[in-house]
């Protein structure tokens, strides 16, 4: 088409080709334009697509089942999980705080894969808008950390006292040749330690709407 060497036939071919290819394209767009069934958009807030079973939404930790093993903290490539725990009276770890910074989380799912008690799971939630960065940290333990620590320390102390008492008693019993009180002391100690997490669970229900994406979704 550079003037020299361009024949009339080429010129006309050019025009014909332009018209034909344009018409072809327009036929396709017209077909889509007329056919209303082809529309694929969903009206998002009203119509919601059901996420797949394996969908990796927000993380949720069922703290009743969590063993504070810190596997998730170790495996997280971006360090978005922070966990604090203290050793309870029954030698098991008691969660003091379990925070996930979802502003940092990249939803890779490695933490869920490694979680031994399967307490950490992905929810189907994906909607969470907030005004400040600080709000992006999900707190899974609702109770004040200090309170838990104090309570656990108290329990530990109590248990230790009890154990000491029991030991004393045992010693006394040994001296008196009776080992039974020591065994009875343990069942007494457990109920004292257990109600605390249960309380947490019930407290989470009303106040946990922010922390629990599933309820929002």
């Amino acid at each position, binding site marked *: 088409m550079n003037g020299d060497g361009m024949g009339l036939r080429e010129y006309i071919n050019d025009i014909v*080709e332009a018209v034909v290819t344009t018409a072809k394209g327009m036929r396709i*767009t017209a077909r889509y334009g007329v056919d209303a069934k082809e529309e*694929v958009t969903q009206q998002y807030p009203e119509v919601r697509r059901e996420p797949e079973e394996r969908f*990796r939404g927000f993380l949720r930790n069922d703290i009743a089942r969590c063993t504070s093993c810190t596997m998730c903290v170790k495996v997280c*490539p971006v360090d978005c999980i922070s966990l604090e725990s203290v050793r309870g009276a029954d030698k098991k770890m008691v969660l003091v705080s379990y925070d996930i910074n979802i502003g940092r989380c990249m939803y890779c799912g*490695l933490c869920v894969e490694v979680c031994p008690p399967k307490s950490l799971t992905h929810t189907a939630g994906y909607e969470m808008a907030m005004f400040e960065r600080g709000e992006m940290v999900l707190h899974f333990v609702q109770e004040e950390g200090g309170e838990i620590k104090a309570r656990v320390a108290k329990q530990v102390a109590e248990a230790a006292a009890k154990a000491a008492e029991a030991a004393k008693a045992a010693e006394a019993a040994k001296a008196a040749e009776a080992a039974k009180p020591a065994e009875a002391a343990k069942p007494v100690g457990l109920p004292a330690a257990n109600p605390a997490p249960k309380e947490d669970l019930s407290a989470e229900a009303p106040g946990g709407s922010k922390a629990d994406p599933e309820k929002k979704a």
Partner: protein
Amino acid sequence: MTRPTEALHTQEMLINMGPQHPSTHGVLRVLLRTDGEVVVNARPDIGYLHRGLEKIGERVTYAQFMPFTDRLDYLAGMNCNCAWAWAVEKLAGIEVPERAEYIRVIVSELNRISSHLIAFGSFTADMGAFTPFLYSIREREVVNDLFEMVCGNRLTYNYARVGGVSADLPQGFLEKTKEFLDYFEPKIDEYNNLISYNKIFVHRLANVAVISAKDAVGYGLTGPNLRGSGVKFDLRKDEPYSVYPKLEFDVCVGTGERGALGDCFDRYMVRINEMRQSIRILRQAVAQIPEGPVMAKVPRLFKPAAGEVYFRSECPRGETGFYIISDGTTNPSRLKIRTGSFVTMNIFETVTKGLMIADIVAVIGSFDIILPEIDR
């Protein structure tokens, strides 16, 4: 397109194309020196998206680096995932179950289709036709649905694992894949009718930024950009890995059908044709996939023996290679990533001399660069 003579030389203008520009495919900044509409020099300025992925690689374990490979080329996360897994397996000498390899090939090829779809769509959008872009997105959504089914995410998959894949294919996945292939195959012809052979589109691309085969090899281009220049080089064929030797497909090369060999149109057509080949591969893989485990026994915190390894695989944007030096600990001692887009940027300044501003957009689109891969 012709440069004015010295007598007509006017004042040159310096224009910043990017980092905020609709068609630089991200935060690429091209420093244009133009003489009116004619580009005297176009110098790409990269690094606006640098996240230090290679340094991160030294800090995290081999398994932990997997999600970061999603961020390497976010339009082809599966390919990068698998490439990393293959690289680490080569380093540690891990044998992967065959079913896992087939799954990797299936998701890789699906991802190649979805990545080429974006390349096609955004390229046409750069050329001013917005409609094909949305058609391509429509098809890509189906692939994303499939990926969500298999791994739970739509963009950053983190599906492959060292030693296999994170989970077996879910129920009905292969059927849905077949369905998608049957649905998708005729769409390629539709794209061709709609835009590929459109006179205006052809005129915009043909004979623009011609790269000779010699230059393409010399500058280290890989992937569709290399094949667009007529060089028949595909790592899946020439340095076969995984189960690719068992699958039949052709290597698409540019033919110069509407202009010179190695122009923008050839690079574009290579991608369109590669989607067909991916369909072919997928059909075979879906038919051949064996039953069995999808994960080899790999310790959670494994320590490969000290040594180094380079593994490269054919990603949608060219060769993605991981060079890993291991010192016997759980983390790589040094990690170097070679990506297609980064190497492609080398030739950018050379081929854009004397083009027009609109052609710069065409060149960027035809290279199908992606910025996270360039800056890493």
